């Protein structure tokens, strides 16, 4: 088990290196550079030239590649060109904010999808199953940017119940409860798609499990529904549930960019968006790498849990 975890962790390193390389190439090939935006349009030619030199933007490809390789391998990603501060410090700060949003979304996704999938599978082909399926289908089809704005309209504007911008009320920061109230709408918006995906996949796994001969055998012996569902059927659907949920970790962490923009949530997605717009190479690297790390870690943890759940492989 321990050896397996180590081995899987080592396997993730080439993935991260590959991701980082692709980002490096993309930033290098992207038209436009950071200097004009840093110095303004009225900046003199000398001003732009010396900043390009300072940031190493004029170095030949091979030199830039070497600097990048060194940075990735040593884990020191350098300074943000725009904010002039160490990339890791900035990325970690934003990651914390994204982490909060990811955890709360993950919580909703796992609890709700488990409940909905179980009901759906148990009452397969009933009205309630079809209602849940339709609802999930609708949820998955709603664009995040649309859902977010509708939620704001409903719960912030029409019924002024919940705040819609940022993590705290800046005029009078209220601590944890303030954060919770700011968290609700972005969480629901971010969780929507994942909820639909996890519910659909888990339902299928549950349906398969419930159709197995051993369940029929269990029913024949007079086991209670509760015992059949939780003790026997779900046990078999659990690896699928964990795997698909693990995939959502990275997705919720890195792809929350729409909800982060709409709700002005200062997370990694919003930072990545701003960094791409301003062509801040080191920051783009840092953000993407961070998202990739969380993605890989989410899968890794899911894999390890699944292996641990599997009695044969334990």
């Amino acid at each position, binding site marked *: 088990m321990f050896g397996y975890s180590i081995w899987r962790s080592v396997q993730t390193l080439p993935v991260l290196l590959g991701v980082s390389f692709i980002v490096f190439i993309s930033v290098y090939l992207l038209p436009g550079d950071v200097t004009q935006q840093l110095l303004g349009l009225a900046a003199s030619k000398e001003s732009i030239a010396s900043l390009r030199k300072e940031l190493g933007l004029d170095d030949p490809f091979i030199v830039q590649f070497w600097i990048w390789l060194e940075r990735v391998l040593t884990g020191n990603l350098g300074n943000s060109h725009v904010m002039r501060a160490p990339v890791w410090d900035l990325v970690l700060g934003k990651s914390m904010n994204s982490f909060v949003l990811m955890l709360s979304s993950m919580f909703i996704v796992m609890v709700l999808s488990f409940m909905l999938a179980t009901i759906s599978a148990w009452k397969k082909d009933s009205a309630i199953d079809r209602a849940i399926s339709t609802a999930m289908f609708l949820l998955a089809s709603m664009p995040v940017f649309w859902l977010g704005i509708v939620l704001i309209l409903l719960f*912030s504007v029409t019924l002024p119940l919940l705040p819609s911008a940022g993590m705290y009320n800046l*005029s009078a920061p209220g*601590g944890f409860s303030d954060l919770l109230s700011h968290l609700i709408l972005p969480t629901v918006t971010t969780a929507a798609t994942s909820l639909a995906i996890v519910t659909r996949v888990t339902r299928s796994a549950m349906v398969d499990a419930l159709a197995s001969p051993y369940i029929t055998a269990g029913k024949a012996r007079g086991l209670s529904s509760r015992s059949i569902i939780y003790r026997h059927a779900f046990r078999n659907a659990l690896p699928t549930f964990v795997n698909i949920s693990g995939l959502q970790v990275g997705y919720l962490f890195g792809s929350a960019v729409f909800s982060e923009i709409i709700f002005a949530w200062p997370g990694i997605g919003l930072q990545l968006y701003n960094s791409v717009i301003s062509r801040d190479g080191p920051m783009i690297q840092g953000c993407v790498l961070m998202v990739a790390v969380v993605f890989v870690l989410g899968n890794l943890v899911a894999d390890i849990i699944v292996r641990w759940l599997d009695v044969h492989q334990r």
Partner: protein
Amino acid sequence: MKDKRLGLVRAGRGLAAALVMLSVFVPITDAPAQSGEKTVVMGIEGDPLSLDPHTHALWLTARVVSNIFEGFVGQDLSKSNVPIAPIVPALAESWDISADGAVYTFKLRQNVKFHDGESWNAEAAKFNFDRILNRESPQFYEKAYQQNTWWRQDVEKYEVVDDYTFRITLKTPNAEFLRRLSQGGIGSAWMASPKAVRAAASNDDFAKTPVGTGPFRFVERVFGEQIVLEKNENYWDPARVPQYDRLIYRPIVDVAAREQALVTGAIDIAATPSPDNSALLEQQGFTLVKGEVPTVYVIWLNMKQKALQDVRVRRAISMALDREGLSQKLRLGQAIPAYSMLNIGGPGYDPDYKCNAYDPAKAKDLLKEAGYGDGFDVKMIWTPGGAGDVGMVADAEWFQRNLADVGIRASIEVLDIGTFFTMMNQGMPEGSDMLQISWGENSANWLDAVVRTSALPPNGYNSGYYDNPKMDQLLDEARTSASEEQMTSKLRALRDVICEDAAFIPTHSPLGVVATSKSIHNFVMAPQHWPDMALVTKE
């Protein structure tokens, strides 16, 4: 039944555990602000750059920096819709200008302290000038030297006369020198605390903890999230001591999200709401503060394109554009038609001036004369714009319809702002005909980067290759004019040459607009890219 309840209890426990876990990770902000403290939160269009007054680069950043720092002279931003913001004393109480216009002697204000307690005097002024101009000084900052070319280029020398007298000698007279000393947006001659600059480990570090003499003190910045300032209760001008405690700038890039944040009360002031939502915001009880600001949207024409080499075609394009219609119908009255490179709120602006104005019939005649009676194809390269631009692509579509009316078939290619700037700097690519960007300052210096032959790509933003030495001559003459009248006449001569050549086509100046909550008063949209936040009050 019992089982069900157990399930609920379990779910409740799970929820509680999750909350506890969350609270471990969450960086909880400070306890609630002390009761009775007044905070004004302004939602702005993007994250400002370096808060160093000498290198701040953009007016988006100047908007923050101008609260913390000031120069010898300032601009009175307490009135809107005046032709140009008047120059007023700031860190200098008074000044003398020699008869030949070359020597400026400033009497500095006494008993002024920087936010860190350092005294303001002629030595502090010299420290700042050395940082920008003197390569031999330990605090010399190359980037500051380059970002301030536009005002320092005429400075021959500067000296401390006594503790509170500072003298600047220019190589040639410069009718706009005081204005340039008061102006920001690229770099500025605003004064930083020598003690703080020396104490900072690097210039970048000083920009993270800026110290000046202005009506607001810097408190804290979280990149991309907030910049917190607090009032300087010791500010020298009692009329500009802020009437509230904290000023927080909060970047919210998306315009709809910014408007939402205002509606839901997360911010008190939203910068640049979209014209389309103005009526709605007003209906909901928010105040729209509007005023003329020194911005002008200009179309660059690619002089290398065959059709555009004919001045009749260029004039026809200008005459095809319905600027009135755009201002009234598309921008809903929140724009003013523009015909001149001398922008509103800047030197030499004339509200009655018109040039190659809307006349589609005449445009068609000109095209026929030039041999394009059957029309021709043009490619417009556009951008949704940077911070502060709204509705640019809709403008492009408006122009596209205007051009179609005279037989010109236009296609639009939209680039993001970063790619767009680089394209402008490299010059308009082959096959492209028109581009548009907003510019304008309350000093004429921006024209140096746009119309001069020395600004031809890749050295500046004369991106359409308008190669006319007359521009250089007139701009030099304007800058080194001894009097404002002379400067204005030179600038207007330049304007007329550009109009005659239809080399650039100004189209419109959007009004500066902010939306504020009902509790905000005295927000003045003066003709400047940044407002005087010290005048604002909150109920």
